[in-house]
């Protein structure tokens, strides 16, 4: 099912409650009443067309209208990517690490050493994510926003041209693979190789969180790799092309 902006927000959530993650990320609070997606978006100053596309992409793994997504401004896309980053760093990753911490605490002495290994694994992973996201937020995104600005104003500074020559946005995204693989490994280690947990319930909670995080991050990197990056590359090409034509 494909959602539309004229549907009631509450009906959207009834159809797929996982979308609460998206509303939460956009800062939308509960208490929708009978408001439509459109009126909620207007109230919060969110681009409704973009918001609906994000709901749909998140809801249906086969739905990914690449060209339509690319038609939104880089600013809009990056704003979303940035709030997702905050959600990972400030909420999700510390939450999961805390949960694994509880799991370790509740282990018998015999198992504790082994369970501590996954706590350390996740801890390292979280820091790797933090570094990766930091570089995106501080280098990649500002660069992308500047490219869009230069493209829109048809005015490119020499310093930006220099950066365009030195820096390739593509290189950066190769890191995504490693980040995804680590999460994959962690799930397998927990399911296949750790000694039987004394507290299965808690272990399921951890796994559940990891599976959801993995899905979320796959959607996120797909947005970065197949929407944002190609969009910026298109603009870079057009800027260099125009510059050459003028000279």
């Amino acid at each position, binding site marked *: 099912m494909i959602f539309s902006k004229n549907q009631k927000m509450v009906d959207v959530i009834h159809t797929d409650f996982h979308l609460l993650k998206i509303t939460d990320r956009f800062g939308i609070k509960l208490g929708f009443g009978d408001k439509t997606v459109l009126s909620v978006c207007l109230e919060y100053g969110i681009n409704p067309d973009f918001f609906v596309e994000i709901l749909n992409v998140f809801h249906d793994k086969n739905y990914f209208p690449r060209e339509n997504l690319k038609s939104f401004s880089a600013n809009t896309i990056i704003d979303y990517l940035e709030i997702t980053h905050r959600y990972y760093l400030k909420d999700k990753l510390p939450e999961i690490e805390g949960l694994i911490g509880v799991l370790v605490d509740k282990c018998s002495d015999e198992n504790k050493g*082994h369970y501590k290994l996954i706590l350390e694994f996740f801890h390292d992973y979280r820091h790797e994510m933090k570094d990766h996201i930091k570089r995106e937020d501080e280098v990649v995104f500002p660069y992308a926003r500047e490219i869009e600005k230069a493209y829109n104003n048809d005015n490119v500074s020499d310093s930006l041209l220099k950066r365009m020559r030195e820096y390739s946005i593509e290189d950066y995204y190769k890191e995504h693979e490693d980040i995804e*693989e680590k999460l994959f*490994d*962690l799930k*397998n*280690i927990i399911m*296949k*190789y750790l000694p039987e947990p004394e507290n299965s319930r808690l272990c399921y909670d951890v796994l559940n969180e990891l599976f959801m995080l993995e899905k979320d991050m796959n959607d996120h990197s797909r947005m970065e790799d197949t929407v944002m990056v190609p969009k910026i590359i298109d603009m870079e090409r057009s800027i260099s092309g125009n510059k050459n034509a003028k000279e």
Partner: protein
Amino acid sequence: MISVTIIEPSFIIRQGLVSSLSGFRDIEIHKVYDEFDNIEVIIKKIDTDIAILNPSSIDQISLAKLIEKDSEFFSKRIVLFTNFPVGLDLESAVRAVFSYHQSEADIVKGMNKLVAELNTTEEPKEEVLSKREQDILRLIALGKTQKEIADELFISTHTVVSHRKNITRKLGIKTVSGLTVYAILNNLISMGELQ
């Protein structure tokens, strides 16, 4: 895994076939055709284990001609899915016949029988690392590079890479940090060695 082609002009039945067959673990849908105009061309292109075809979409005479041309192909690969009873002649000329009116249980049973006859992939089995793979895993976990491992074991780096691939496939662990955790959990290395 067996591969399947679906040839069905009706949208709703085609979707139904695709979605019901997707539920089978060992069935992979390769191609879906929605037209019958070029049935002869389509049949020539079939490279899957079986092709599911609705006989009511072709006239009887053309179908008989097609079967006559390549009877072995039809008896091995063509599965009919039909709304009307087919004659005994036709039934014996093809691999299997399913009807719209069969129950879910019967269709599942029939498909599973086909899968069992055609499936060449082995049953999943427990993966065990060989002694050599364990040695290599140990060295990976200790943080050695491919070159160092090759030198230490007197093998080529190419061999190290291929062992590494097998280890990853067997364990379902891809990263060095993941392999390290596995190695500790299975006493291939001790915590002390890591420091």
